[in-house]
């Protein structure tokens, strides 16, 4: 098992907390649109769409919190990997059936599902599991500077994530007329 400094670990965990918090937020803010996007995936029976649309943002919000605390982080790692892989599978299922024009439901301006997004989810799942496998070298008391590093590094990773998404969305096929 690899050992890293506590700050590295916490920066990664905070990134995942950001990731899920913002995912839950955009789903909650545009809930009816999110429900329609979920229905478009056609992976759930019609009756279940409503309940999953209701449940998933709550699960994501809970995951965001779980990443922040030492006691729940182990659970968060597994759940994050499972959820990301489930999303990837849903996208792959639709792509393999030629339905490449549905919205991914990733928030923002929206973009059509594509293999790049499946890869993105796989990379994130691997990153989450790797974080779970890391162990802190030593439990040392954190200084204020450590918190700055953790917050800034998590923000920076999230920024890279946004940039990757945007560059993917810029590729054809772009969304047709809004």
């Amino acid at each position, binding site marked *: 098992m690899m050992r890293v400094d506590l700050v590295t670990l916490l920066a990664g965990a905070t990134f995942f907390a950001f990731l899920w918090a913002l995912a839950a937020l955009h789903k909650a803010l*545009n809930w009816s*649109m999110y429900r*329609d*996007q979920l229905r*478009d995936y056609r992976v759930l029976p019609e009756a279940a769409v409503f309940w999953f649309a209701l449940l998933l943002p709550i699960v994501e919000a809970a995951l965001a919190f779980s990443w922040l605390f030492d006691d729940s982080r182990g659970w968060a790692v597994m759940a994050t990997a499972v959820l990301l892989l489930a999303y990837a599978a849903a996208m792959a299922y639709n792509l393999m059936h030629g*339905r490449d*024009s*549905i*919205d991914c439901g990733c928030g923002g*301006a*929206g973009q*059509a599902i594509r293999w790049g997004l499946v890869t993105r989810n796989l990379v994130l799942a691997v990153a989450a599991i790797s974080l779970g496998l890391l162990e802190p070298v030593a439990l040392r008391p954190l200084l204020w*500077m450590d918190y*700055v*590093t953790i917050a*800034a590094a998590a*923000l*920076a990773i999230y*920024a*890279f994530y*946004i*940039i990757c998404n*945007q*560059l993917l*969305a*810029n590729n054809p*096929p*772009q*969304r*047709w*007329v*809004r």
Partner: protein
Amino acid sequence: MNEITLSVSNVLLWCVVLVLLAMVIALARQVGVLFERVAPMGALVTDSGPALGASAPAFELTTLEAKPISIPGAAGLGTLLFFLSPTCPVCKKLLPVLKSVQQSERSWLRVVLASDGNMPEHLAFWQSAGLTSFPYVLSAELGMTYRVSRLPYAVLIDEQGKVRAKGLINSREQLESLFVAKDLGVTSVQEYLAQPHSHAHSHAHSHAE
């Protein structure tokens, strides 16, 4: 070097990194917006004049070289009618594009330049602008039939003598949109983008935002 020095430099560096990342995000967004803006936009189609899909009105005209020319041409020969005038700057900008179209599409298409007015002026323009490879006709009646009100204006007539696309042309892309419209079997690129075709976003609600 003490602890404060290190902390200050570290915080400053983080600020720089985050600001730069925000800028990269903004740039990536702008690239996306730019892509959307340059999505195929067709020539401005007007509803007046011969309808799209209808047979092009027959004309027997004489070119500047005093050769007879019929519009539409013989079966199997398409015609791009390009209405221009020696005094229109956008028309001149498009002349190189017309030359390349004439070259690349010559197997099925002839490009005919059309205008009206007095002969000497057009003859001078025809020679000085290097247009001698194009048939050039002067006919006020032709322009009136196609209701050409602004220049440059182009009409694409297919091999069967039917009007397939037309519109006000301001750029290479808009000229190409006429050929795209013909190839896709739609009357204009605007119509193509508006109709629910196979690749279009299948649900309207996500656009509702």
